């Protein structure tokens, strides 16, 4: 895991991670980082992302939520997010490579 950033406990509290997964993909949102800009929503090629009806992001506006069943793991949302608020992990391939 040496190619990944370490997150300490304090940061985890701040970041408020929450994950969901399907067979191939694990999607983690960091609610405490999401600034509710909506860029991921626009860029997701399969419209898997929408506003979370309950959870608020960093600025007390609605966070996003990923419909994990629709998600194809393309990572575009992770890439576009200006706030590092999404992490997409393609499960078997990526994990085993290391």
């Amino acid at each position, binding site marked *: 895991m040496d190619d*990944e950033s370490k997150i300490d406990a304090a940061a*985890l*509290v*701040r970041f408020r991670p929450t994950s*969901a997964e399907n067979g191939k993909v694990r999607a*983690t949102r960091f609610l405490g980082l999401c600034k509710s800009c909506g860029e991921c929503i626009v860029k997701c090629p399969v419209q898997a992302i929408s506003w979370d009806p309950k959870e608020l992001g*960093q600025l007390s506006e609605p966070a996003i939520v990923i419909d994990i069943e629709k998600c194809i793991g393309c990572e575009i949302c992770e890439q576009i997010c*200006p706030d*590092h608020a*999404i992490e997409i992990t393609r499960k078997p391939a990526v994990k085993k490579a290391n």
Partner: protein
Amino acid sequence: MPDAIANPQAATHAFPKCVRIESKPHLYCPGCGHPEVLKALGFAIDELGIQQRVAFGIDIGCSLLAWDYFNLDTVETHHGRTIPTMAGVKRSNTDAVAIAYVGDGGAYAIGAGGLLNAAVRDEKILVIVVNNALYAMTGGQESPTTPPGMKVATAPKGADQYYIRAPEVIRSVNPSAFVARGITTVQPALRQLMKAALQHQMDGKGFAFIEVLSQCPLNWGTMGEPEKTFNFLEHGLAEVFPVKRY
């Protein structure tokens, strides 16, 4: 989900390793393009393993909000003066990987003479210009890249006709420089550009220049409307400023 929380040293690839976790959430507005540029740069630095060699110079402008984005040796300079500062760093410490991170105002208005002459002198530094087509930090004034007709604080009826296409200009004074234009919304390509440009410097090849088209929802008046933001970025701007390697 809670596995991450359970592990006090959890890991994530949402961040480049050279990013400073303690300072997140960072200081940029929602939807700002700056951190997308920084992210691409961070991954390139990671891939090249040069975190300890980088001298990261940041201009006054929203660039300065990057002051605690990374764990990198970082220096805020004056508005428009980051390019000469980094040239001075590199000339004196040839091991350094010197990066000047500047806005379009800092690079093409007040810093235009410095940029052009750094290119002519073939300074062995990487200049990254975040082109959001206006002066963001000071409240949305016209910059030399504001496209014709765009309404900004100092051109309320719309900006005038001409603008600077900097890669074209740089190329005309420096045939061997690394010159490219990227865009925030195509991250894999942007990361590749960053990496190649840094490699250019590390190989001792001279000047490297990347302009990145970047969104400023706050001053574009598109905050909360990402479709509009991207529409202006990917059409309004990218059609005027071609995204490519030169």
